[in-house]
Each structure stands twice: as structure tokens, then as C-alpha cells.
């Protein structure tokens, strides 16, 4: 109890500190502050989509899936192609984007089943090889995408479904892209949905019990391996969904995988490996931190490089200062 209260105080302090820092450095310019806040939430939502899979998979199966970033990329590429390919131009514009998201998510899920069933299952006795294997799969996915789509990145065309890409809204006399808000909303909805799945369903109870002690769950006569496959598939599908949702804003390129994998890992470590609550909170904290540092660095230090290395710096700091994370168990 004491520890939980300390954790909430820490989260509050860090978040308020970040916001205050951003507010003060924006020197009363509410528009600039609002942009930072919104892009922080936007990044946070995307980080959550990558990190939630990482976190649950790690908690349940003890595998840190280094291929999670690659699934994000797959989602983005598939959605991009479905929206832009000549063959699909006959489909109504408003249908194409949702269709792309659905297909991207499904392909991500299918690839997730393939990875867990075909490649990881034989290796449960050798965890270090699982780690190496997911790393290898990340490379193969990246190279496969390169072979299919080429090295050039793609950016989303101006035409979009429902006009979500172009529409703007105004706060504090500054224009904001509505699409970012949409992504934030999707992220929040997913946090709630996955949370409900974990807390309110039978499968969720099994997953949570498995995180605590998967051998015990197996001893109770539950097929833990089947749950492993389901969770892995779900995690990969959610990552692909994240890529699909991000595509209209970020486009599709080969750098995306690593650009979201490392923040995703930072989120998972910050939240505490295996803690869902921690992942949800951690996503938005890392997102905010990256956005705040990015704006500060580009405005005052005139260097954009700091934004790119912020996730790594955060990860290193967390590992140094509090390796068990916010909600992690104080062990090992």
C-alpha cells in the first residue's frame, strides 16, 4: 500500500513537472504549449499500441518480442498500400482506410500466430534463443518489407477517408490536426478495451494468473500454451493496428520499426515489466517526455537530434534509477 501510494505520487510529480517545464518554456504561448501536449498524447497513444503487446507477452511468456516494431511497420505498409494501390481505387474513399486498418491488423495477427506457433514454440526451453530469434525475425520483416516496397519511404496522399487527415480545429488561436486527436481517442479506447478484457473476462483472468505463475495455471488444467498463442497474436495484431492507425500521419518507412520499438521498450520498463496499468500510464509519460524534449530542443538548442534519442535516454535513466519500473515487483 505504501509503495502504491509512493508510485502515484511519483507519477503525479513527474507528469506535473514535465507539463510545468513545458508551460514555462513556452513563455505563455498557450498555442505552443497545446501543440506539445497534443503531440505528447498522440505519441503516447501510439507507444501504447506497441508497448501493450510487448508488456503482456513479456509478463505471460517471458519473451521480450523485439519484432514488435516490425509488426507496427507491417501494419503501416499494408494500410498504406490498400489505400493507395491502383487496384483498390474502385473502392469508396471512406471505406478504403477502415478496410486497410482491418486488413493490416489481420495480417499482423496472422504473422503473430506464425511466429509463436512456428518459431517460438520449439524454443521455450532455451529463452536466450527466443530473444535472438525475435531479433532475427525483426530483421527478416524489415528486409522483407524492403524487398516488396523498396527502400523509399511513403507519405500519405492528401485524399483521406472522411477528411480526417485534413480537418483542423482551433484552440488558443492555433490550428491542430484533428487526426492526432483521433489517434489519442483510439488509444484511450483500446486501453479501456484491453483493460476490460484482462479484468472482466475469463480469458483475462487466465492471462493475469499466468503472469503471476504460468506453471500453476497449467497445473489447474488450463492449456496455457493456447493462451500463449492467443496473447501473442493479440499483441502483434495490436502493434500492427497501431502502425495502421499511424500511417495517415507518419506514412510508411523502414525506420518506423526501431523508432517505435525502443520507446515501446522504454514504456514497458518504466511501467514495470508485465504490468498493464504501468504500460498504460508509462506510454503517456514517455510520449509527453519525448514531445516536451523535442520542442525544447528544437526551439532552444536548435537541435532535433535530442528528440530522437530521448526514448533511449529515458530507457537508460529508468534502468539506472528504478529498474523495477513504476508498478513492477521489487525483485531481482
Amino acid at each position, binding site marked *: 500500500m505504501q509503495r502504491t501510494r509512493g508510485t502515484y505520487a511519483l507519477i503525479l510529480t513527474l507528469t506535473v513537472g514535465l507539463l510545468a517545464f513545458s508551460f514555462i518554456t513556452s513563455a505563455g504561448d498557450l498555442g505552443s504549449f497545446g501543440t506539445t501536449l497534443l503531440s505528447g498524447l498522440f505519441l503516447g497513444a501510439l507507444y501504447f499500441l506497441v508497448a501493450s503487446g510487448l508488456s503482456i507477452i513479456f509478463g505471460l511468456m517471458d519473451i*521480450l518480442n*523485439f519484432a514488435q516494431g516490425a509488426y507496427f511497420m507491417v501494419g503501416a505498409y499494408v494500410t498504406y498500400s490498400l489505400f493507395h494501390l491502383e487496384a483498390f481505387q474502385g473502392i469508396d474513399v471512406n471505406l478504403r482506410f477502415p478496410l486497410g486498418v482491418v486488413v493490416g491488423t489481420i495480417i499482423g495477427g496472422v504473422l503473430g500466430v506464425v511466429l509463436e506457433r512456428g*518459431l517460438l514454440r*520449439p*524454443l521455450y526451453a*532455451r*529463452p*536466450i*534463443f527466443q*530473444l*535472438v*530469434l525475435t*531479433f*532475427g*525475425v525483426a*530483421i*527478416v520483416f524489415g*528486409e*522483407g518489407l*524492403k*524487398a516488396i516496397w523498396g527502400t523509399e519511404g511513403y507519405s500519405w496522399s492528401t485524399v483521406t477517408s472522411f477528411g480526417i487527415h485534413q480537418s483542423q480545429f482551433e484552440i488558443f488561436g492555433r490550428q491542430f490536426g484533428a487526426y492526432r486527436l483521433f489517434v489519442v481517442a483510439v488509444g484511450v479506447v483500446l486501453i479501456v478495451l484491453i483493460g476490460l478484457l484482462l479484468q472482466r473476462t475469463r480469458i483475462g483472468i487466465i492471462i493475469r494468473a499466468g503472469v503471476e505463475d504460468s506453471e500453476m495455471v497449467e497445473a489447474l488444467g488450463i492449456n496455457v500454451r493456447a493462451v500463449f498463442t492467443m496473447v501473442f497474436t493479440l499483441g502483434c495484431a495490436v502493434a500492427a493496428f497501431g502502425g495502421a492507425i499511424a500511417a495517415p500521419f507518419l506514412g510508411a518507412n523502414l525506420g518506423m520499426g*526501431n523508432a517505435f520499438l*525502443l520507446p515501446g*521498450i*522504454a514504456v514497458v*520498463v518504466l511501467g514495470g515489466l508485465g504490468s498493464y496499468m504501468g504500460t498504460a500510464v508509462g506510454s503517456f509519460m514517455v510520449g509527453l517526455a519525448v514531445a516536451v524534449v523535442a520542442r525544447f530542443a528544437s526551439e532552444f538548442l536548435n*537541435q*532535433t*537530434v535530442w528528440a*530522437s*534519442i530521448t*526514448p*533511449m*535516454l529515458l*530507457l*537508460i535513466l529508468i*534502468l*539506472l534509477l528504478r*529498474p523495477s519500473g513504476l508498478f513492477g515487483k521489487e525483485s*531481482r
Partner: protein
Amino acid sequence: MQSTRSLPRWRRVFQSNRLYLAVLMFLVVFPHLVGWITGDSPFGVGGRPRGQSVFWQSVFIEVFILAILTMSYNLIFGFTGVISFGHALFFGLGGYILGLVLQMTDLGPEIGLVIGGVIGVAICGLLGFLMGLVSLRLRGVYFAIFTLAIAEMFFIYIGRWPLTNAEDGFALNNIPELLNSTRNRLTYYYLALVLVVLTFLFIRRLINSPTGKVLLAIRENENRAQAIGYNTLTFKLVAITLAGMMAAGAGMLHVILNKKVGPETLGLTYTVDPLLMTIIGGVGTHAGPLIGTAGLHLSERVFNREFIIGSTTINIGQNWSLILGIVFIVVVLVFPQGVVGTWARWRQRRRAARAPTEGGDV
């Protein structure tokens, strides 16, 4: 001691290493052999570094450099059982430090090389030590995360660092004449070969020493090694520090060979390559990294062109990494012992199968 007793021992060493010695002999005469066959002098044609012999020398120098890097990776991954995803950090940083000392100071090529080399190796060793110190106490996966994060951070930062021309890197022209790989490539070939042999002997000696035995024990079961009373953290730190220093040395050889320092040396490629080469060659064996490196790098050289099968053109060079990745996954799944381990096991099995029949019906 008496010569009667030292002679058999000498012969025993010779006997047990005759395959290595044969390969070494081959590599020593290799440039001259190629020169003799193709008629191109190993010292270059017409005072310029041209011809088959010089070309193959440079290919083999690359193999030697990668072999040192891979052996250093095998020391931590194969022998100690610690997985790092940031080995390129040491490789690239070693090259950068040497390059900075040579190009940005007035020490002159020779002194600069020595000082830069010493500083680079020392810093990389220290960095490995510090990285290990903060993350090796936690469970294994944290070290993998930590190394990946630090390596990526350096890669991104140095890729945009104005002092080193950001992503273009900078040229290295302040090199001692003897090591100039354009004019004295044969010398450089032998230097790299000597360093490979020294690294190989050093790691083999280390693994056969009491320290090495503890490293192997950590790989097999760290809790047990701890229970016996070894401070496993210390031993793991020794391994990662030494590996960092060797990788830095390999990185220095790399930048001197290419006469250029660039951020690509810090990239994921130089982490992935040693990882693949170690696993494909044979994790935790002495010959594995050498076989893996030579096999993969030479086949990349051979297949790096277009193949026309029927009406389709397949450019393998373009998809080399994809093929490599798939091979890697297959090896991890089917032959986790790699080439060397699988070969040893196969031989053992064959011997076991033959043993009972020998006295019987044959």
C-alpha cells in the same frame, strides 16, 4: 626441462592443432598463390593496388576484421551466455576515437595511432565495464535492452554530430605509411592475420584458464556458479570488458582499411553480423566464429550479383540480408549448435554407431 619431454608435448600441440595450422599456412601463402595463378603480383599491378591478388587480399582483410569482432561477441554470447544487442557500439566507437585522434590532433600518424589506439581500446573497455556494472546485476534481458538503447543512442547522435560531419563521416588520411592499405595492402593483410591469430589464441587461453571455466559455468547455470561462491558479476564484467576492447580493435582496423570513419560502423549491421556469424558458425566454440565469418562474408562476395533463372533476374546482393535472416532463423530452429556443433555431434554419433559393430559382423 629436458628436450626428450618437451618434444612430445610440442608435437602434441602440433597434432591437436594441425587443422588450424594448415588453414593458417594457406592464409599466409594465399596472396602469393592467387598472384601466381592469375599472374597479378600480390603487391599490385604497375605500382597501383590492382589485380586479383590485391582484390582478394582486401576481401580477406574484411573477413579477418569481422572475425575479430565475431570472436569478441562469441566471448560474451557464446562462452558467458550474456546476450548483447549493442556490440556495434564498441566497433564503431573504437574507430571514431582513433579517427578523431589521428585527424583532429597534431600528434603525427605514428604517435597518433598508438595513442588513439590505446585511448580507444581503454574507453571501449571502460564503457563495457560501466554498462555491465549497471545492467548485468539485473536479469539477462535488461542487459540486451540496455546495450541496444545505448548503441542506438550513439548511432543516432553521432550520425548527426557536426564535429564528425554527421552522416557523411570523415576521411582518414593521417595514417602511417606502413599501414596505408592502398600502397601496402599485403602488409596490412599480414597484420590483420596476426591479430586474428592473437585474438584466437587469447580467447582460447582465457577459456581454458580458471576464469574461463567460471565463465562457462555462468553460461550453464548462473545460480549454481553463484552458489559455489563465485562472484558471477565480476566474471561477467571481465568478459564484457575484454569483448569491448577487442571489438574496438576490430573497429580500428576497419577504419584504417577503409580510410574513412562513418556512423554506419555504429549501426545495427555490426551487431547483427557477429550475432548471425556466431550462431551460424557455432555458439560457444572456438572455430565457430571463424567458420561463420568466412562462410558468410565470402558467400556474400560470391553471390553479390544478378542471377538469371529462366526469364527472371534475381539480384541476390540486394536481398542478401533477407536471405541471411532466413538462414539465421532456420539455423536457430534446426541447428542451434551451428556448423561446428552440428558437425561435432554428427561425428560423435557416427563413432558411437560404429563402435559396437567393430567387433561384430564387419
